[in-house]
């Protein structure tokens, strides 16, 4: 990963343009007629210092890409951001990232630019995506002044939409992972949680394909419909 970023930075800065501007990063894509069986999807998980988006910060970003219906392990993102000034006591226990590992992190700006470049504007999926979206948007705005809207989809909605009768015993990532017998290698590690989320996404996409859902737009609509149903039933 480190090597990749260095190369990328050298490539970008080697050009005459000097520092790249955030607005030069790939345009966010809108759900349209892209085929689910062909398009690229980002599955992402953040580690943060806490749950409060107004005062807590992002520590690490883990993400994998789904390409043409398969998780492509040569196309992944696993990075600790540089946040040495933060008080870590709150989250250090959950994530296992200590101050020492954090200081080995990367220049935040570079890392976030690389993330945007890597994301390539493709739709982003996350478990309880509202949380990750809030944190990522806040960080991108603060560090890069970047405010463009990406398409986000919540895997926590995706699963019950396709498996309404599953007796998971709860709504968490762990519940669904247990339900499908997934083994999560290092829970609460951003990259590892992202992979588990991506595996659940593959299961949902398999079901989507069988129920005739072909395009990204159809999937997006199905999720919106599911959320509306949920709110009507007043849960």
């Amino acid at each position: 990963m480190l090597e990749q970023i260095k190369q990328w930075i050298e490539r970008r800065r080697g050009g005459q343009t000097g520092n790249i501007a955030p607005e030069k990063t790939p345009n966010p894509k809108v759900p349209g007629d892209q085929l689910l069986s062909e398009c690229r999807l980002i599955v992402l998980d953040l580690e943060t210092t806490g749950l409060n988006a107004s005062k807590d910060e992002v520590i690490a970003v883990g993400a994998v890409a789904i390409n043409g219906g398969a998780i492509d392990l040569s196309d992944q993102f696993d990075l600790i951001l540089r946040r040495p000034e933060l008080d870590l006591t709150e989250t250090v226990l959950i994530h296992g990232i200590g101050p020492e590992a954090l200081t080995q992190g990367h220049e935040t700006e570079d890392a976030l630019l690389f993330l945007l470049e890597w994301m390539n504007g493709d739709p982003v999926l996350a478990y309880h995506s509202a949380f990750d979206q809030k944190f990522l948007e806040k960080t991108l705005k603060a560090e890069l002044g970047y405010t463009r809207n990406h398409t986000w989809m919540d895997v926590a909605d995706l699963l019950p939409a396709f498996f309404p009768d599953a007796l998971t015993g709860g709504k968490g990532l762990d519940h669904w992972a247990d339900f499908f017998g997934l083994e999560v290698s290092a829970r609460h590690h951003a990259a590892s949680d992202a992979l588990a989320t991506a595996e659940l996404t593959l299961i949902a996409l398999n079901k989507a394909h069988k129920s005739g859902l072909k395009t990204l737009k159809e999937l997006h609509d199905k999720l919106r419909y599911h959320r509306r149903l949920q709110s009507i039933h007043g849960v």
Partner: protein
Amino acid sequence: MAASNQDNTRPQNTRSIMVFLQAHAPFSNMDDDHLAHFAEHATLRFYADGDVVLAAEDGVVNRFYVVKQGRIRGERHNDKADKTETTFEISIGECFPLAAIVGERPTRTLHRAAGDTFCLSIEQDAFITLISESEPFRDFCLRGVSSLLDQVNQRIQTGAMASMGSSISLSTPLDRYALRNPIVCTPDLPVRKAVARMHENNVGSIVITDDNRHPAGIFTLRDLRTMIAEDTCSLDAPVRQIMTKDPCCLPATADAFAAAMLMAEHHFSHLCLVDENNCLIGMVSERDLFSLQRVDLVSLARTIGTATHLRTLVSLRTDVSRLVDAMLAHGADSGQVVKIITTLNDVTVRRVLELNIKKNDPGIPFTWLTFGSEGRQEQTLLTDQDNGILFQTPDGMTEDQVREKLLPFARVVNDELAECGFTLCKGNIMASNPKLCLSDREWDDWFVRFIDASTPQNLVYSSIFLDMRAIYGPTDSLDELLDKVLTRIQKNALFQKMLAGNAFQRKPPLTMFRNFRYVTDGKKRSLDLKRQGLAPFVESVRVFALANGVKSANTLERMDDLTKAGVFDAKDANAWKDAYSLIQAIRMRSHQEMLERGDELTNYIDPDDLNPLDRRILRESFRQAQRLQQKLEVTYQL
């Protein structure tokens, strides 16, 4: 896991895939760099239950897959039966499709997900890189599962070898051990001169050859000792008077195991090696074969066979277990080891009988029969008695009068065998039972009733009495009896079908989802390797053997004979023999471990105690038992 977590140069998900791979062969033997290459180039795909993963229509295979979660089922259409058959099962950590990707052709088997399944896969490029750079991976891909079987056997041997410190294999051709140009003499040479020649050459034996260099006899220092002690012959007499005539000969291509078995059975300490014209080319002594061992098969068999007291026989039993260790160390497979144990058990039984005849001769010739696993020559260290007596009623006596003389004798023998470690049979299937001490006519009647009236009890007995062998006394009357029994069974389709139905009841311990089905035994999960693992093979093979007039009782030999008779396909039979032998090997190793710990021997194991390779091979072996039962099902329309 902890170790690889410290490796922070690789992304977490790459590391976790490497850890996953490391738990399974052949990846467990591969370098980290090669595993990383796999992980970094892998894609992870999901297949729901029943989804097709790979089919012939997909064309030349260009990906190599490893099951990460779930299971893959191989399906082929059987045109004859017009139905789809499962040809194999691939579970967690296993790879596919080996033959197709190596042979650069489409797969011939439909690969379908059995249950929700995730597979890691790499493209052909990455596969080729790994094949060319990683030797363990190359070895595995080119030799397939058979390289795994080798690994299991290797481990059994290294485990046993650790205590032996030797690397000579029993499958080594005798050539390697043989003394070339052994000392020879003519039959007319006086004993004195023959001994002088042995002395000059510092050898313990001399081969007596005729004019054509055919071995005519053998003379050893032991013979000299007996000759002098018992004063049977003069030193000036020609050696032909005292030599052991017609010495045992084997071709040079025979292996050390064959030689050891011959020596053990006949108590020889020397064998001649001959060429295709029966001309002497070498000589093998027991010492050559076992020079590095503390316990040797031949001398143990001889010590048992010449013991003069019961307590000697009892004390020798611990040597048998040490010998099993040694044999495994020397490369004997499980089939060979059970034969060794059976041979030594036979020698023990014979000696107990001989000692009792000396002490208290019942005065009536009899044949000592043995049934069940001993009858099949498939005994392990855990064994109980299943025996009986066959006699011919002397003129002027009734059968009951004969029994009056034989039964007390048999009672003593049964008790003494129990002291030697052959547990008394709980079902009283023993020679001292009046119902099993019968004349040839009575045995014949007994089998007629047995075959005609297929009661449930008779079906239970079938696994005992239909695997029968004589280990002492004349064998002619048993041969005649067996001929009649086989002919009767071959004519009786109903009996065959009932036997088949009974054999079909013994299901291998796999669930519908191909997991192990456990015996409920308190808290611990366990498998009964004998009743659940071996019995399905033994019972099914017995039905085919009896129905097709195969005379041997040994399961592996029965399978060979059935293949020769065209009843079994050679490929199937080999797979079944391998599977059966592997279950037996795992059972024997667990017996040896129990002995080491001083535990009581049982046939139960907890598969969780096995390493992943053994677990996988055990599961595959059970699946082979299912296939054999399917054949039974089709043949007898069960």
